[in-house]
């Protein structure tokens, strides 16, 4: 066990545990909050792996923006506060989902481990400077493309929000 191992195990365990809570809790709002914990722990993992820039981006974008957006969405859709069972799926489906999820996790882990082995490897995250050089050198065109994508997504979200949709009954009346 190296220091890296210890640190990563702690961060990973927190991340996984909170992720588990996020998908299993009956409180809708808690679900989003546990997601925050999970993602923050994940950024810890990134730190351990030497990708400090990615970790910061993760904190900023995900925790700072995305999850907030999710919380807003929950509130806008009048998510009930406290435990709610109205959106529970049938037990069968949950069982199937559990099996599938577990199987996927096992499958993925097995495949990845068998692909990369369990050797001790040096962690080489590189400096942020090197990353920046690459990002605005080699990867600049995809990067620019992504900025365009973000813009399009923004406009699309705006357009969706302004769609002239009423309630079901009024919509039906409108069609008639």
């Amino acid at each position, binding site marked *: 066990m190296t220091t890296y191992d210890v640190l990563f195990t702690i961060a990973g365990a927190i991340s996984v545990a909170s992720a588990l809570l996020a998908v299993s809790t009956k409180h809708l709002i808690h679900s989003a909050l546990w997601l925050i914990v999970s993602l923050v722990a994940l950024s810890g993992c990134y730190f351990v792996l030497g990708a400090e820039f990615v970790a910061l981006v993760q904190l900023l974008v995900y925790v700072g923006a995305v999850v907030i957006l999710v919380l807003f969405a929950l509130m806008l859709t009048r998510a009930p506060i406290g435990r709610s069972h109205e959106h529970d799926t049938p037990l069968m489906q949950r069982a199937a989902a559990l099996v*599938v999820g577990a199987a996927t996790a096992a499958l993925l882990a097995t495949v*990845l481990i068998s692909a990369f082995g369990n050797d001790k490897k040096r962690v080489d995250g590189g400096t942020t400077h090197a990353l920046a050089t690459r990002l605005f050198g080699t990867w600049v065109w995809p990067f620019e493309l992504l900025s365009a994508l973000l813009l399009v997504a923004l406009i699309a979200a705006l357009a969706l929000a302004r769609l002239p949709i009423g309630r*079901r009954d009024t919509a039906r009346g409108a069609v008639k």
Partner: protein
Amino acid sequence: MIHSALPMIVVGLLFGIGLYGVLARRNAVLVLIGVELMLAAAGLLFVTVGSLTSDAMRAGQVMTIFVITIAAAEIAVALGVILAVFRARGNIDMAQAGERE
């Protein structure tokens, strides 16, 4: 120095949990949370592989940044859709999503 199996196990678990979340939830926003977890798992895999193989292109980290960006875009659109659906139907229950009017 780090054992390369550790990150891989975390990746597998996160992805599996995310998949469970997608499959087991009816609320669309919660499904979206599952999707986020799966994306996070993908990002972690990128970073792990990038860091452990010391890639001169830094492709692992760059890709993760891209994934995060795309995730942000995706969630913006997805939430827009969810809100639109909510306005149209009064709920965001996935179990009723396929039913015709």
